[in-house]
């Protein structure tokens, strides 16, 4: 039984199934996040409880602010119905409506991830192609050294070096993602370069560039495009520490602060956002992969 849907399934049915899966994943993501946050230690332990100025009454009031979130099911149901009305809730830790926070910070993250992904893919693919085409030990060794260095240096140290030199810290995501993309693309290209039809083309005397563009690249595309979808979620994951370290006021920094302060409404909404973006990224790469391999979805 092949993995793809039977050709007898109607298109509307497949679209419905895809949409239902999409929605269910978002729903499950939010539910799981709410559960994890609610059950995590320190959920109702606000830092303000250590303020010696607060009397018993104020401390009790502080604890009571969590009452609405104690029942996960009730909180989740309430949140979902509010979201359908456009109300994303109120962030206790930031003391602002969640909608306002997301609207203010989303452009920063989009820009950061956009620059990061573009830079990482450009660098990764070109370097991988160079190494595969050159095939020499020096180029491999040099690439290995650069990748090893970038993979090994903590983001905080990299950020400081860039900042100290007056460089744009926004390129940090590119530097974090580029080694991973390079390694994978290099391996995929090298593997494709050993396929029988490619070897046959080279044996027939075709130029290395032509072989690369006409045979190696098309054979590698599905796997490379699969990574494209994953790289979106990798970029979002990388954005969190990068924004925290570099003090960039984006979604990643917001997620970190929300996690530290167990801000349930904010975290659930951020999870929805990340799940949607991840799924969209994967969907796009699946579509692109299907187009290139001429298979149905």
């Amino acid at each position: 039984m092949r993995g793809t849907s039977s050709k007898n399934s109607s298109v509307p049915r497949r679209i419905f199934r895809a949409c239902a899966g999409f929605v269910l994943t978002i729903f499950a993501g939010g539910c799981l996040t709410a559960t994890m946050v609610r059950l995590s230690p320190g959920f109702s332990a606000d830092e303000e409880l250590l303020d010696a100025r607060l009397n018993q009454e104020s401390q009790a009031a502080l604890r009571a602010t969590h009452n609405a979130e104690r029942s996960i099911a009730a909180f989740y149901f309430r949140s979902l119905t509010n979201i359908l009305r456009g109300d994303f809730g109120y962030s206790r830790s930031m003391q602002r409506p969640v909608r306002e926070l997301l609207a203010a910070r989303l452009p920063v993250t989009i820009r950061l991830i956009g620059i990061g992904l573009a830079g990482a893919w450009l660098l990764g693919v070109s370097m991988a192609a160079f190494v595969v085409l050159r095939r020499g030990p020096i180029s491999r060794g040099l690439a290995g050294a650069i990748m090893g260095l970038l993979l090994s240096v903590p983001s905080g140290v990299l950020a400081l070096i860039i900042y100290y030199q007056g460089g744009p810290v926004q390129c940090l995501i590119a530097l974090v993602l580029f080694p991973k993309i390079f390694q994978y693309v290099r391996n995929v290209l090298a593997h494709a370069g050993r396929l029988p039809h490619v070897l046959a083309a080279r044996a027939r005397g075709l130029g290395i560039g032509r072989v690369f563009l006409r045979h190696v690249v098309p054979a590698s595309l599905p796997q490379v495009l699969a990574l494209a979808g994953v790289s979106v979620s990798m970029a979002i994951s990388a954005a969190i520490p990068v924004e925290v370290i570099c003090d960039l006021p984006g979604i990643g920094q917001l997620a970190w602060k929300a996690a530290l302060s167990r801000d349930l409404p904010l975290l659930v909404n951020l999870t929805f956002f990340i799940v949607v973006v991840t799924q969209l990224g994967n969907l796009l790469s699946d579509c692109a992969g299907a187009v290139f391999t001429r298979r149905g979805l």
Partner: protein
Amino acid sequence: MKSLLTIAASVLGCIATFAAPAPELRFCLHAEPKTFNPLLVDDDASETIRYLTGGVLIRVNRRTQELEPHLALSWHVSDGGRTIQFRLRPGIVFSDGTPFDAGDVAYTFKALMDRNLHSPTADPFRSDSGDPQIKVPAPDQVRITFPAPVSGLERLFDQVAILSSRSPAKDRAVLGPFMMASYQPGVEVVLKRNPKYWRHDAAGRPLPYAETVHLYIQQNRDFEMVRFRRGELDLIDTLSPETFEQLSRQMPQAVRDLGPSLESEMMWFNQVPSAPIPDYKKAWFRSANFRRAISAAINRTDLCRLIYRGHATPASGPVSPANQFWFNSKLSPQPYDVADARRRLAADGFRLSNGRLFDRDGHQVEFSIITNAGNTAREKMAAMMQQDLRAVGVQLNVVSLDFRSLIERISQTFAYEACLLGLTNLDLDPSAQMNVWLSSASNHQWNPNQAKPATEWEAEIDRRMRAQASTIDMQARKADFDRVQQIVAEQAPFLYLVTKNSLAALSPSVRNASPGVLRPQTYWNVENLIVAQNQ
């Protein structure tokens, strides 16, 4: 031709003058301000904004620690500390021109004391159940009567920024030296000069001198230091010892070690009877001898030297020597004395065997200490304490927890054995620490929320703290609080480790700065600060 050149030069000069940046004070907030409502301030960033924009009746001079009249020309405390009457300064207006009078003070205080607000600024005013009575006998006089005496009453007004009762701008109309200009979430807060600010310098020029205050939201302290070195910031209010050392090599004229601050590091043992820890460990922790022994086994001098690079001193108690009036100078820090530690442990029936300590029932003395993760100084301190305690045969396990998990353990579940944390006294007056010292209070960390005091010495602390809170006789209060400090030194419920020094950095372009140890250290006299033209 000549006249054309002259005109051109004049025009260029005018353009240059217009284009010259106005003097701007620039520094960082280390977190996003949570609120701009001065009555609800509970975090450092919001407090900074309140300090810069809010007008207060009485201001604590951060250098001399004395009270100074601000919006109030004078005040009088009577009725044993139950009543305070203010006479207000005439001719003051809010930043939008709305006149300031006693009605505004009454309005602000009423809003502050609203029980539904749960303002952290309000709770210290609540000495008893019942609400204060606020009367306005004249437009420039306010009288507030509390149901019970409030000790240190006047100092509390340093935290109360007066709001306008009539301004259409609501809480955006301010009486402080600066007012809100713009706020970019996550990026910066910009304050601009309040043109209606009431203070003038000796020559009659209106204050503040700075036109704007630029507060960058920057959590990363390394970045902050880089920006300071580049000249993008004018001051750093609190420096870590490592940053201080780095800056003192590169910009020695910029760094200041102001001496002991009000911050100290301390540890305590869990003495909660219902704590989910073995009974034999509870018995250890309840013994004053055991606690004093552990205290004696810790080398505080090494902690100051290695972790704080000499910018700290061994702590003698809950009050820093920086708190000039309340510090009990008769107390001295617990000296490092391994022999004394061993003697005390032996007196309690502990015995050493093969380098390990055992209690009289044969249990090896081993306990864990929790501290908040990410605070490298505390983690290192715990590591040093591990080695120190090994010398007396005690096995210490260090557990770093994220802050909220730690708070949950020390205030809700009590599932811990010992805790290492820091203490910052924002207020000099010991009445601000009532919720720490009273045995029934929730911040009585080693054994909170007691129905009745578990020990005689805690009962005495309760009596002394209540006594000092119910009188305005400063000498009597001092005697009571000195005795509390003495008891704490003898019984060691808290083991005070080090008092950190106040470290700050000030750009040479900032003049009239007079940094002190009370927060805000460097810009407490912000209206007098002159900033040379920023580059």
